């Protein structure tokens, strides 16, 4: 019940907003997002971080017994972190909308709160159908938010967003149902249907390789759209650009993470053999996304679109880290989900604040804001640097660990120590190198943005007067030239977290050790199975191994000799 309350609270608040007078909407929205945070504090007091990847605080109610459907909730370390991110962004989005949203206030806050409930639900669901329900249900509030409160091209953006992600996730549903069917047919003792995560994961891992391949791609279809992975990303710039500020923040901060979370839970957890086999394919798509998305950022004129495309580039690192399958890569990737939510969410907030004042997002018209809005400019430089991946801020550790995991992925699995790439379905230094070029491109386009928007001569007099005109005609005339206390209050917690996670990530890293080590153990066994299945694969790996030199120290072997064959705790984690 403790976990259920986290979902119920914003949901009830949302309904309350809908049925109460308009004046109360803001207050209820604030309470409806702050209260879950307080409750989360209580959840934390019950939760034990040091346990292995076993779900805690389980909650299970029969839902549709004939099909084995249950309302099943649970939390492990990864879910807890992502729920924390979702809860944190809740009140920030509400506060950020105070002056931006003045019409249809009730509709807006009601859907915002319902969206909050659905996103929390996704991370806590432990029944696949329940997960899918929440996953799909996030589309509806987001559709409404973009469609009613977005900018000029909002209708098309909302429709595309909805149809695109919906189409992808239908395939995911098919994959999941196939696994459930397989479980009922072949694995389950009494041929009973179930949709529980743990049981389906076990069943899926027992499937023959050829079945896993299909299930893998079906699962990836939905999540890859959501992430978004390279060729499936075109909904994102449109939706981000057209959405209201809070919508963009949630979209970048949490909704994209549903995709990577889904990949971690399902594509990686359910079908490890196929995931290893197709890791290079996915990794190449991720790297294309990193470079291609980054270069596209560089030629944008709309600053919001630039940040939107930067998500395509950034999430490439995240997926790459996942498909390294080692603890460092997986940890980096999960941290990336949180860090990207903080820094990119903050960038969207910053752009929203400027938009409210100047009513444009054109970088050629927004120039030299450092002179006009020094406080805003300071925050902007700070969050941009977090996004660039400057060490000492949050983005660095996750990006670096993703790359580091990728770099050593080849070695760790196949037992090679050559730079020659990754034969046999693994990544390696070359992947890290090409992804690393993304670090340079990130710097290029983000500094390009800073150079256009923050630095430079302040925009000319004519524009200035226009801005003032709009300012005075606007009924948000109460907005000061630089940031208001409310706006600083929104940004400060994000900035503090960016700094804290950059300088003291140790607790988060500690928390992620157990789950990622267990995932890695699964992959150790999957790799062995694949080597049995494709003898040529292991032979190639043996061949390319550099003859071990007669060095007195053999530090390199430390990393390679660690492929776990029988890890007891890992099997515990599975059942």
């Amino acid at each position, binding site marked *: 019940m403790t976990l259920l309350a986290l979902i119920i609270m914003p949901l009830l608040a949302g309904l309350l907003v809908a049925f109460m007078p308009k004046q109360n909407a803001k207050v209820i929205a604030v309470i409806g997002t702050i209260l879950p945070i307080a409750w989360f504090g209580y959840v934390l007091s019950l939760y034990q971080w040091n346990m292995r990847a076993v779900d805690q605080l389980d909650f299970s109610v029969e839902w549709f017994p004939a099909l084995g459907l249950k309302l099943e909730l649970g939390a492990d370390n990864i879910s807890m972190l992502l729920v924390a991110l979702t809860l944190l962004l809740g009140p920030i989005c509400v506060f950020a909308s105070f002056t931006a949203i003045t019409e249809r206030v009730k509709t807006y806050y009601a859907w915002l709160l319902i969206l909050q409930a659905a996103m929390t639900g996704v991370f806590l669901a432990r029944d696949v159908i329940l997960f899918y329900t929440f996953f799909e249900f996030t589309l509806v509030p987001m559709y409404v938010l973009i469609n009613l409160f977005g900018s000029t091209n909002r209708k098309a953006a909302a429709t595309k967003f909805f149809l695109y992600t919906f189409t992808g996730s239908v395939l995911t549903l098919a994959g999941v149902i196939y696994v459930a069917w397989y479980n009922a047919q072949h694995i389950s003792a009494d041929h009973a249907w179930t949709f529980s995560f743990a049981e389906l994961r076990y069943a899926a891992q027992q499937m023959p390789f050829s079945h896993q391949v299909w299930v893998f791609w079906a699962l990836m279809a939905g999540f890859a759209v959501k992430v978004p992975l390279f060729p499936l990303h*075109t909904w994102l710039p449109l939706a981000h650009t057209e959405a209201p500020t809070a919508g963009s923040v949630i979209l970048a901060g949490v909704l994209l993470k549903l995709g990577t979370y889904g990949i971690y839970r399902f594509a990686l957890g359910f079908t490890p053999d196929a995931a290893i086999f197709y890791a290079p394919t996915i990794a190449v798509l991720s790297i294309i996304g990193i470079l291609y998305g980054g270069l596209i950022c*560089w030629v944008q004129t709309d600053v919001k679109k630039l940040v939107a495309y930067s998500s395509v580039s950034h999430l490439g690192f995240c997926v790459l880290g996942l498909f390294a399958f080692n603890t460092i890569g997986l940890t980096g990737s999960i941290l990336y989900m949180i860090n990207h939510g903080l820094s990119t969410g903050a960038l969207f907030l910053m752009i929203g604040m400027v938009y409210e004042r100047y009513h444009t997002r054109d970088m050629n018209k927004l120039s030299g804001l450092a002179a006009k809005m020094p406080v805003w400019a300071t925050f902007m430089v700070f969050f941009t640097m977090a996004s660039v991946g400057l060490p000492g801020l949050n983005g660095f550790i996750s990006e670096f660990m993703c790359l*580091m995991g990728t770099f050593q992925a080849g070695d760790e699995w196949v037992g090679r120590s050559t730079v020659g790439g990754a034969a046999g379905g693994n990544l390696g230094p070359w992947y890290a190198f090409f992804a690393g070029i993304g670090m340079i491109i990130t710097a290029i386009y983000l500094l390009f943005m800073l150079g256009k928007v923050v630095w430079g001569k302040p925009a000319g007099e004519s524009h200035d007067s226009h801005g003032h005109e709009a300012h005075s005609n606007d009924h948000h005339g109460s907005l000061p030239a630089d940031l208001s206390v409310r706006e600083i209050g929104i940004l400060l917690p994000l900035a503090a977290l960016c700094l804290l996670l950059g300088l003291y990530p*140790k607790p988060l890293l500690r928390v992620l050790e157990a789950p990622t080590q267990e995932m890695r153990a699964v992959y150790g066994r999957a790799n062995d199975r694949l080597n049995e299945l494709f003898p040529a694969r292991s032979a190639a790996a043996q061949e390319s191994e550099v003859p071990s030199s007669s060095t007195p120290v053999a530090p*390199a072997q430390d990393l390679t000799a660690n492929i776990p064959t029988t890890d007891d705790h890992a099997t515990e984690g599975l059942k």
Partner: protein
Amino acid sequence: MFTTNPLNALLALTLADAGTVPASAALIPFLPLLGCILCGLCAIFKVKSKLPAYLSVACVGVAFLLTVQMFLATSGGSAGDHAAHGGAVVKAFDWIQFNWGIAKAGEPAKALIANFSFYIDPLTCLWMLFVSGLATLIALYASEYMSHDVGPGYCRFFAAFCLFVFSMACLVMGDNLLLLYLGWEGVGLCSYLLIGYFYKKPSAVAAAKKAFVMNRIGDLGLALGLMLTFVQFGTVEYAKLFPMVQTYLDHPGDAPYLVQLIPVLLTIGAFGKSAQLFLYVWLPDAMEGPTPVSALIHAATMVTAGVYLVARFMPIYAVSEWALPIVAWGGAITAFWAATIGMAQFDIKRIMAYSTVSQLGYMFAGLGVLGAAGAASHVFTHAFFKALLFLACGAVMHGFAGQLDLRKLSGLRRMQGWKVVSYTMLVGCLNLAGFPLITAGFWSKDMILADAFANQYAPIGWLLLLTAGMTAYYTFRVFFRVFCGPMLFEPGDELHSHDDHSHKEDHAHHSERGATHAATQFHPHPPGLAINAVLAILAVATFAAIPLFFIGEHHGWVGGMVHGSTAGATLHHAGDTHAHGTFLGQDPHKVMYYVSAVVGVIGIFIAWRLHLVGRTSAATAGADRLVPALGPIPKWAQGKWYVDELYHWLFYTPLRVLSHIFFTLDKFLVDGLVNLFGWLPRALGTSAQPMQDGELHGYASRMVQGVVLVLLIALVLVGIGGAR
């Protein structure tokens, strides 16, 4: 960790143990950070005084005192006491700690550990001494230099300044590669913020961006080197890393080629940060920043970070077959290349910038030819005399309304109030030119040259010797043009180095002064006490550095420091395996003094002959008569060999075009396909619409058609199945 191998003793330090390092050493980086926070608070509380400068001077100054304490504590009493480990490690707090596997009993921990802890050995002390010392002096200088900007800009400047010192301290003191990387990118950020200090100037913004991006290219190399180090050794902490490297050093040739690749990757990072080879073009542009920044960051400290990196990782470099030759040739070629450009420039600050690139080339060449002591000595002396030169140029620029063209300034030596600047400038120039005996720059440059010949890198030695002559020429070209000859000047077009202030009153003031320029009523305002005092201290320091070359048995005091650090391992390692080279049959260590002295004096003489003798105007000199004889070469050198244009044409434009192509593709092809998918069902629906004609017979006929179609398909399928 160590066996009783004599080579181990070389790697071990003159440092006894962690107990001798005062715990306050861990405070050194955090004091400047405190300064940064205080400056930030000044900005929040809208302080409109010089308070931020004084806070910065205080914080950095205390950090300097603590550094001196650390140095005294580690060098005193423990000399010759070869401890069982490299440097002492002082931990501040845990940063990154991550167990990536479960180590079985007896195995080393499977963990990625990178703490905020500091590795203190003589190399650290050496670097921190001049970093914190110069930062204190330059903060003092900047308190006067930046005084026109008191207010938010002043706070911003000093906040970034302090942040820089913090980052630099992390870079130099960090006990692991990740903390070094933090400092590495941190100094890059501060460099970015300070180059772009005059953010309303498009050229400054562009230069800042260029510096950051070029550095990032190098950083990628460093990052990959870091990852490879971790993969190969399972750790990034120096205290664990260097003993493992030592085993490879003991058995040269055993190192797998991936280990040998590590230093090559690190070199890319070092070349980026220190503006070498292909990555030098950002440094001259970085002169857009305020002059104290150019002096501290882009001449004395940050740009030597690459040299530090190579010196620190000398054991790994020694393991590799290719890394040190790459470093040596990269440095030597850069030294020569930058000198050719420096000879043809007219902007005195740019000349100094190219001379920095050139001198950094010397340092790398020194490291590459196994002369780490000479390289470190040159870093040390260069830090002082180049800071001095920049600050003197800054004083000129400050006093003559931003005038930096040597064709528009002449005879400053005899002007009222410019004595200190002139004579300290002379001291700096003599050092840079390598004037014999009385300058520290002579002794340190000489060590590098001698090592190049002695360690059988004669081509590099000759190249560097030629460059030494060119350096002497272009240095004194500046001095004879600007400070000697007839008293003539033309003020620059700015009151200060930038034209538009954020303050309105300043703006009014400016335009008033601007009007007086036109009326040729301009009076250069000579520097005040803070600037003169700092210049004098630095000039004295360059002389004070000379006796240091005669202390101790290992190439002077600096050589002793290097010898006692990780950089020292190779000095002797190399000494064993390399035969002693000669300079024209003579022992280079004995004759190089005379040779380099002659070369330096010849360079100065040519400059005197061409730029001072018979010069009556500021704009022209005897050298101009020679220009036609050289064909297009002077013009090309003045155009910096068009490297910027080449890069623009080779990298910028294609990337930009590619980006536009990608964006277009994204809009029309990638998204177009998606839209096609969206459009297909609708199109099908629309085209099928006429069939829904609502007539019963129509439906019936189409039902028949449908059934026939299904049957046909079924037949075909069955047929295929049967055929199998």
